[in-house]
């Protein structure tokens, strides 16, 4: 199975390190979540993968070959977002019909079918699209590129709930048909959690998690109760976040098995965080 390997990727803009020694693997036949706060390095990573920008150090390999100025490799990687570079006077249908010059496996028929499903008028000029439809157009271009690696950067931006549900269904259907690798960056974590087999978490340019999405969620638990009791329970444990309300306190504890209710002091309750709750705890500042 085809594989993309990212090795020690670092990107500095002046004195700012946007991406700091990130290594990860993306295999065809899997859907990944790329998660992290604004400014964590997600978009930088995406633009390095697609060769839109060059790393300060490190490399991106596709089946062992560096993607840098490698046309064959780049035809197999399609990152949504590049279409911002397209002139606004272009019509959606013109983009679709010219895509095959860049992505030879472009499926124009599928692109047109998607336009119809989303109610996007292919005769519209890109500059005349609303925020939601601009996102939809970019998603459609990426999904119909025929690339083996499809990277969707914020594919839900401006989409209403109906269009988001439709998008999730279409992603799964396309994945089932093509087995293309999907990497999806989003802030709607709980809504998308079910799509991901594995998640990457970036924080301040560093990769802080690269794990099976269920395993990651089960790597932490929430404990809640009277402040004094919670504090004595969490003493010596790795606490990601802790917040108080009145005389009560809730903490997110990382690592170790989730204690069974019988093993807990009276008055304390444990629960499993949602992926979003855990992400908030992992990427909280300070």
């Amino acid at each position, binding site marked *: 199975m085809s594989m993309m390997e990212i090795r020690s990727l670092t990107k500095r803009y002046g004195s700012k390190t946007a991406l700091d020694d990130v290594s990860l693997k993306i295999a065809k036949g*899997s*859907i990944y979540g790329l998660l992290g706060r604004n400014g964590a390095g997600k978009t930088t990573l995406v633009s390095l993968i697609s060769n839109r920008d060059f790393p300060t150090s490190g490399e991106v390999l596709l089946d062992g070959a560096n993607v840098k100025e490698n046309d064959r490799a780049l035809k197999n990687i399609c990152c949504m977002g590049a279409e911002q570079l397209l002139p606004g006077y272009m019509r959606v249908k013109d983009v679709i019909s010219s895509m095959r010059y860049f992505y030879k496996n472009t499926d124009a028929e599928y692109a047109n079918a998607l336009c119809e499903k989303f109610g996007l008028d292919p005769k519209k000029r890109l500059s005349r699209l609303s925020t939601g439809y601009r996102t939809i157009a970019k998603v459609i271009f990426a999904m119909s590129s025929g690339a083996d690696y499809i990277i969707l950067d914020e594919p839900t931006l401006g989409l209403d709930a109906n269009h*988001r*549900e439709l998008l*999730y*269904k279409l992603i*799964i*259907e396309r*994945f*089932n048909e093509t087995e293309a690798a999907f990497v999806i960056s989003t802030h709607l974590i*709980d*809504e*998308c*959690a*079910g*799509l*991901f*087999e594995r998640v990457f978490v970036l924080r301040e340019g560093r990769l802080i998690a690269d794990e099976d999405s*269920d395993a990651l*969620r*089960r790597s932490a638990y929430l404990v809640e109760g009277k402040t004094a009791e919670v504090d004595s329970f969490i003493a010596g444990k790795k606490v990601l976040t802790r917040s108080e309300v009145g005389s009560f306190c809730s903490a997110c504890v990382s690592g170790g098995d989730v204690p069974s209710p019988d093993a807990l002091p009276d008055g304390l309750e444990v*629960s*499993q*965080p*949602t*992926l*979003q709750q855990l992400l908030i705890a992992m990427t909280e500042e300070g």
Partner: protein
Amino acid sequence: MGVNYPGFNDTEPLFIQIARWLENKIVTGQLKADEQIPSTTELSAALKINPATVRKGVNILVEKGLVYKKRGMGMYVAANAEDSARDDRRERFRDDYVRPMLEEAARLGISRDEVAEMVKGER
């Protein structure tokens, strides 16, 4: 969650929820012996869940012997699945329902006898 099916939540592992969802259909006789269950492809698209997760959920039912695979055809409900799923749930009934109920009763100061009365009076 992209799941807009009743009974799914954001905290339990999804593959377990999928297994339970299918098992419910078997216990209630909505999926009958030798009936084909929806394919992984269908289930994943309908539930908007990663097919690998769906497969993991269906495999729980395979391991329990509730569904079987016909090569090249898909997954089918086993002959004794309804009875065996029901027996399994009967065994867990005390742990899953009776014990939590008694714990809550104890918290509220409701005696065992009062609980028993309520159970008898319930239609």
